């Protein structure tokens, strides 16, 4: 081996232990999940059944119902973006008491989801504080069965997601705002641009990258990380009925409650493949953020 060749190999040798470790920690379980998805697993193994698990899942109305609920929850993202933008810009402009507000809006993100969800669940009970206030304001028609009605429960989960996940948006957007060139805003102000014009023509174009990044992260969150919200608000079952069932919960039920590890593995593989597809736009968005900041 020439000196040049060994020089080229050196960096790979440095990272090799870490690659091996990652392959063991993530790669092996992933391979097992793929393997299980083609088996009728009982206990820790079972006979090979080809694509039967996928066939069963894709032919089951509950699976598609879960997918639909995940898609419906994606509607939360525009709301999260708008709320996060609005609040971060207000904080950026240092309205009176902005330091206190900044702490308040960050609090939901610091607290664990189950804690928030349990508190919110109590708030949204049919005889809970939210409805009591609405009734007191003579808004009885708005006093819904927030967590007990199949028509409303998913929207309640969505409200909770918007409330908590917007905090991440605020943190990201505020960080980006603080790195903007203030001279442009100052110049616009001197030219007589009003608040809306400054936001639309100066701030938003410069934040495109970070907004894209936040949207992609939020899509992944809603597809693959809303289990805790649904578990608490949906009574631990994705209920009422199957009104808040999402894919993650479908997998959990298959694995833990219905003793179908093969089905859980097949659904996990499908979710994994969708998530992988979304990771590419996320990397692109991150690159754009870095370029903008540079």
């Amino acid at each position, binding site marked *: 081996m020439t000196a040049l060749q060994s020089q080229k190999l050196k960096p790979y040798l440095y990272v090799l232990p870490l690659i091996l470790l990652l392959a063991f920690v993530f790669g092996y379980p992933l391979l097992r999940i793929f393997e299980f998805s083609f088996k009728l697993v009982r206990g820790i193994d079972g006979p090979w059944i080809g694509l039967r698990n996928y066939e069963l899942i894709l032919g089951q109305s509950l699976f598609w119902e879960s997918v639909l609920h995940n898609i419906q929850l994606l509607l939360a993202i525009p709301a999260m973006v708008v709320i996060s933008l609005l609040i971060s810009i207000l904080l950026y402009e240092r309205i009176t008491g902005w330091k206190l507000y900044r702490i308040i809006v960050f609090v939901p993100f610091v607290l664990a989801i189950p804690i928030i969800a349990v508190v919110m669940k109590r708030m949204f009970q049919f005889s809970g504080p939210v409805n009591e206030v609405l009734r007191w304001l003579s808004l009885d028609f708005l006093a819904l*069965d927030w967590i007990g009605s199949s028509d409303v429960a998913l929207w309640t989960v969505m409200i909770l997601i918007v409330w908590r996940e917007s905090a991440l948006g605020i943190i990201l957007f505020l960080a980006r705002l603080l790195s903007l060139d203030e001279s442009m805003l100052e110049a616009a102000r001197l030219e007589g641009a009003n608040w809306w014009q400054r936001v639309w023509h100066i701030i938003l174009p410069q934040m495109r990258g970070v907004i894209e990044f936040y949207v992609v992260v939020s899509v992944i969150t809603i597809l693959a990380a809303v289990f805790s919200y649904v578990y608490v608000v949906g009574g631990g*079952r994705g209920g009422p009925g199957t009104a808040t069932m999402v894919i993650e919960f479908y997998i959990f039920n298959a694995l833990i409650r219905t003793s179908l590890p093969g089905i859980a593995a097949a659904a996990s593989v499908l979710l994994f493949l969708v998530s992988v597809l979304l990771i590419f736009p996320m990397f692109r968005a991150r690159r754009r953020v870095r370029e903008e900041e540079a």
Partner: protein
Amino acid sequence: MDSRRHLSRRDLLKTSAMLGAGSALSGLLPAFAAQAQDKTLDMWWWGEQELPGLQKFVDSSIAGYKEATVKPMLQDTAVVISQFQTAAAAGKAPDIQYLWNGVYHMESVWLGYLKGLKGLVSDDVLTASNPTALSRFGGDIYRVGWYPLPMFWCYNKTLFEKAGLDPEAPPATWDALLAACEKLKTAGIEPLGGGIQDGYWSEWYITHSLPQNLDTLGEAVELFIGEKDFRDPKYHEHWTKLAELKTRGYLNKDMSSLELYPGIDLVAAGKLAIGQSIGTRLPADSKATGGKIGYMTMPVFGKGKLAGVPVVDVQGLGISTNAEDPKTAAAFLEYLHSPERLKAFWDATGWIPSNKNFDTSVIADASVRGLWENWGLKPNISNVTNLVPGQFYERAAIPTGQQIVQGSMTGEQAGELASNTAKEWREFNPDMVENYRKWALDLSAPL
């Protein structure tokens, strides 16, 4: 002269020899004493979560047991089954395992992870502990009963009095129930319900109502394996009855947003007249209300032989096929049912152990004693929902009740969903159907 004595080499050797012999002897004595302790048992258990004080009982039992060293591990609720099955598949299951009733342990039986207890545990203990019919398969029994869970409909006697109902004569038939609910409603009292948000009320409702049109518990299994059909009005009548309660406005308004136990609290707090409850709650509820909590079987509407029969579920313990010394494990289970341990169970938990020989004279509360005498010691049936496959439980048993209570499903639609889900379960679990078929034979056989 120097009074200090110098040790010669001989003296040193003698002393060393004596010290050595002493050490050896002192090492041997505990070895003899600990010979019995050489036997070690691993015990994975659950139950402190639903019966506070059980940990104390387990600890004292282990401390007092001299025939073997028992190493306990309290399991998390979510992994009681999966942890055991994974360990058993790897050949590392504990000797003694906590087992919920019915399918929750029968699946492990079918996978070959549990030992049959006939001939291993004494017949006296097996019978007295009432492991229930749901622990029988292929002529063997796979659990020793540990503690019972009598299941009943509870009612608030004070509210009954307010509505002009006889608190000592709760409704026994469906018509009598409807009449009572009407009187309660007229008196401004929410008549019936609880909390169904977490789904367990739905399960308990099936526990009490589905058997009303069954002659044996095996008949319920036939519904899952396709020999009977939930679309037959007889097998979804219980859901039709629930829908009737909803339509008539007898269910509490916040039922859909409350969980099971806060719902039962409403009965104890005098805000709801009738609900569903469980034996382990009765001592506290009876004490809190000054004995004003009554209990009854679900009023009868069905024509099956099981209609109106009290329900008693029983939690239990079994022995894994990985156990190196099953006889030692069996001896420990028998020890837990010794008269002294039965008394200790009551002292630690304030609840009754599952043993027909338990001396009920220690129970001070008349309601609790009455419940045990009428539910535990008289003919009873086990909880039919323990026969329900997990997939059916999650997809049909729980959602049907929740949707009927919120008014978005009829009894017939519930029957349709249940039938389709049973079919779906058969498609997802072709290997389980035959086991269920065999199990139905055990469940239909006389005890």
